C-alpha cells in the first residue's frame, strides 16, 4: 500500500510537470468537442443543381420554384441544352442535373404521365445519394399537388393516398450534434486512456528508468497499478469535462443515471488502459507504441459506429466489431445519454467490457516481465 502511495505521488508529479501533456489532456477534448460536432455533420446542404428546362411551361416554372424554395438546393445554371448542363457536372460546378423534357406540361395533362430525368455526380457518394433522394422527395410532393389539381378539374374523385408521417424519438429535431457529441466524447476518452498509458510505460523502457525500478523490491502489480490509477483518474476527468461541455454548449443532459454512466466509464477505462499496457509490453520505443496504437485507433474509430452505422456494414465487419471496445462505449453513451437506458439495458455491454478489461490486463500482466 505504502509503495503504491509513493508510486502514485511520483507519477502525478511527473504528469503535472509535463505541461504540454496536461494541456493536451485538458484542452484537446474540450476544443474537439467544441469544434468537431459542428463540422462532422451528415446533413447535406447546398446541393448545386443545373437545370435544363426544355419546356418553359407554367408547370415547369412551378417545379423550379419548388426546388429553389427548398433549403437544400442551389440552382447554379438554367439552360436548355443537356450537354451544357452535363459539362457543369464535369467541371464540378453542379452536383446534379434535372432535365425537364419538352412538352412536359402537354404530355402530363394529355397522357397523365411524364418523365423527368436526373443525372447525379456520384463522386461524393453521400451527397449524391441524399441529393437524389431530396430531389425525388420534392418532385413527389409536386406530383401529389398536380394530381389533386388535375383530378379536381376533371371532377373525378380524388384517389386515396397513404401518407407516412413520423416523429424522431430520443432526438426530436434530428440534430446531428446530439448524435455526434456522445460519440466524439467516447473517442476522446479512449484516446486519452489508450495513448497515455501505452506511451508512459514505454517511455520508462526507452529512458531506461525501468531497469532501475526493476532492481528494486517494487512488485510487478504495484508498478502496474501505479501506472494505471493516474490515467484512470485522468480518463474520468476528461469524461467529466466532456459532459460539462456537452451540457453547456449543446444542452445535452444525460437522460439516464449519471451513476450508471460513470460506472460504465470506470470499467471501460480499465479495458482501455489494459490495452495500452499490453501494447507497451510489446513495444521497445515510444515510436513503435505510437504507431501500433494509432493503427488500432483508426480501426476502432472507423469501425466504431460513429460515422457509419454498424448495422449497414457487411457481416464479417459486424463480427469484427464485436472485439472493438470503442463501439460498445459509443453505443452505451448514446443509450444512457440520449435514451435514458437503465442498468438492465446496458448490462450485456457492461459484461463484455468487463471481460475485455480482465482479458487485456491479464494478458499484459503475463507479458510484462521484470526479468528477461
Amino acid at each position, binding site marked *: 500500500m505504502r509503495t503504491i502511495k*509513493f508510486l502514485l505521488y511520483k507519477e502525478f*508529479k511527473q504528469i503535472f510537470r509535463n505541461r504540454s501533456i496536461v494541456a493536451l489532456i485538458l484542452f484537446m477534448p474540450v476544443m474537439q468537442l467544441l469544434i468537431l460536432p459542428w463540422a462532422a455533420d451528415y446533413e447535406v446542404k447546398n446541393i448545386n443543381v443545373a437545370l435544363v428546362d426544355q419546356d418553359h411551361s407554367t408547370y415547369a416554372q412551378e417545379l423550379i420554384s419548388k426546388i429553389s424554395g427548398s433549403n437544400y438546393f442551389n440552382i447554379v445554371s438554367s439552360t436548355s441544352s443537356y450537354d451544357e448542363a452535363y459539362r457543369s457536372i464535369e467541371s464540378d460546378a453542379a452536383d446534379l442535373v434535372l432535365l425537364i423534357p419538352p412538352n412536359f406540361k402537354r404530355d402530363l395533362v394529355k397522357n397523365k404521365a411524364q418523365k423527368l430525368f436526373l443525372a447525379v455526380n456520384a463522386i461524393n457518394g453521400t451527397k449524391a445519394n441524399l441529393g437524389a433522394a431530396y430531389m425525388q422527395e420534392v418532385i413527389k410532393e409536386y406530383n401529389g399537388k398536380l394530381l389533386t389539381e388535375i383530378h379536381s378539374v376533371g371532377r373525378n374523385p380524388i384517389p386515396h393516398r397513404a401518407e407516412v408521417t413520423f416523429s424522431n424519438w430520443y432526438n426530436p429535431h434530428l440534430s446531428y450534434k446530439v448524435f455526434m457529441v456522445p460519440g466524439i466524447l467516447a473517442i476522446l476518452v479512449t484516446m486519452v486512456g489508450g495513448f497515455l498509458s501505452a506511451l508512459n510505460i514505454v517511455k520508462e523502457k526507452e529512458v*531506461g528508468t525501468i531497469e532501475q525500478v526493476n*532492481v528494486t*523490491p517494487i512488485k510487478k502489480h504495484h508498478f502496474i497499478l501505479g501506472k494505471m490509477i493516474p490515467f484512470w483518474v485522468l480518463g474520468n476527468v476528461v469524461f467529466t469535462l466532456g459532459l460539462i461541455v456537452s451540457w453547456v454548449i449543446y444542452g445535452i443532459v444525460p437522460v439516464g443515471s449519471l451513476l450508471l454512466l460513470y460506472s460504465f466509464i470506470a470499467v471501460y477505462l480499465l479495458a482501455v488502459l489494459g490495452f495500452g499496457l499490453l501494447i507497451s509490453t510489446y513495444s521497445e520505443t515510444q515510436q513503435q507504441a505510437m504507431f501500433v496504437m494509432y493503427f488500432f485507433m483508426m480501426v476502432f474509430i472507423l469501425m466504431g459506429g460513429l460515422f457509419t452505422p454498424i448495422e449497414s456494414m457487411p457481416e464479417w465487419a459486424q463480427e469484427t466489431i464485436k472485439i472493438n471496445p470503442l463501439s460498445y462505449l459509443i453505443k452505451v453513451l448514446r443509450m444512457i445519454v440520449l435514451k435514458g437506458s437503465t442498468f438492465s439495458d446496458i448490462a450485456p455491454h457492461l459484461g463484455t467490457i468487463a471481460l475485455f478489461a480482465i482479458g487485456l490486463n491479464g494478458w499484459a500482466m503475463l507479458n510484462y516481465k521484470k*526479468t528477461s
Partner: protein
Amino acid sequence: MKAVIAENISKQYNGKPAVEKVSFEVDEGEIFGLIGPDGAGKTSIFRILTTLLLPDGGSAQVHHWDVVKDWRAIRNAVGYMPGKFSLYQDLTVEENLHFFATVFNTSIQENYHLIEEIYVQLEPFKNRRAGKLSGGMKQKLALCCALIHKPKVLFLDEPTTGVDPVSRREFWEMLKKLKQQNISIVVSTPYMDEASMCDRIASIQSGSILSIDTPQYLVKNYGNQLFKVKANDRYRLLEVLKSVPSTKSYAFGEYAHISVEKGHQMEASEIRQHLHQNGLTGVEIGDAEVTIEDCFINLLH
C-alpha cells in the same frame, strides 16, 4: 562469506554467445573490476547478477542468494547503477533520492551517512531536475540512489564513462570510502587507468574471462621487455616499428611502447639502429615502466 560467486554463467542472444562460462568470486568488502572492451559481455554479466537477465547456463549467487531462485531477496539487498543514466529526468535530485529511498522502505535520513560526502556536492542543485545535471553530477546522483538503501553489494556498470577526468578521480575516491563501510563493489570500466584502483580485476574479452589478478600482480608479472620510443615523425615511427621482428608496438601517450615477445631479448640500440636505417630522426628510446594498460594489451593480443 563471498559477496558474489559466479560459476560458469553463460548467456546467448539469438544463438550468439555473449557470456561464455564466466566464473569468478568477489570477497566481501572488495572492489572487483571487470575490464574489457565494448561488447565484451560486461553489461550482460551485471544484468545476470542483478536478476534482470536469466543466465542460459551456470549459476550465480549474490550474498549467498541464488540469482534465479532468490531474485526478490537480491533486489532488496543490492544497488545497481546501469551504464546508461536511468533516473527520472523529470524529477528533481531530491525527489529521485526520496523515491528510491521509499521504494526500499527506508528514508534519506536513515542512511544519510553513506551518501553524505557525495550528496553535499549535489545539495546546491537539489531542486534541479535530474535531466538538467552535468554528466558528473548525474553519476553522483545515480550512485547516491544506488546507495540509499545501504546495499550489501553495489554493481556499477561503467560508472565513469563520459565523465571528466577530475570527476572520475573523485568518483573512485568515493568508492574506496564505501569499501571501508564493508560494501562490496563490482565495477566495470573500459578505462585501463581505473583498473589499478580495484583490488582485483578480471579482464574480459568476447564473453570470456582471460585472467583474474590483483593489479600489482599483473604489473609485477608482466615478464616482457618493454621499451618506450619517441621520434619526430610519429606516424612513420609506428609504421616502422611494425617491422621490428618478434615485438608488438602500440601508441602510448606521447610515446610508442615496444613489447618484446617472451623468449626473445633485444637491446635498445638495436631498435635505435633499425629506426635510423629507416630515416627517422630525433629518436629517443628507453626502458618503460610497466602499467596495467600494458598488461592488458599483452593479454588481449
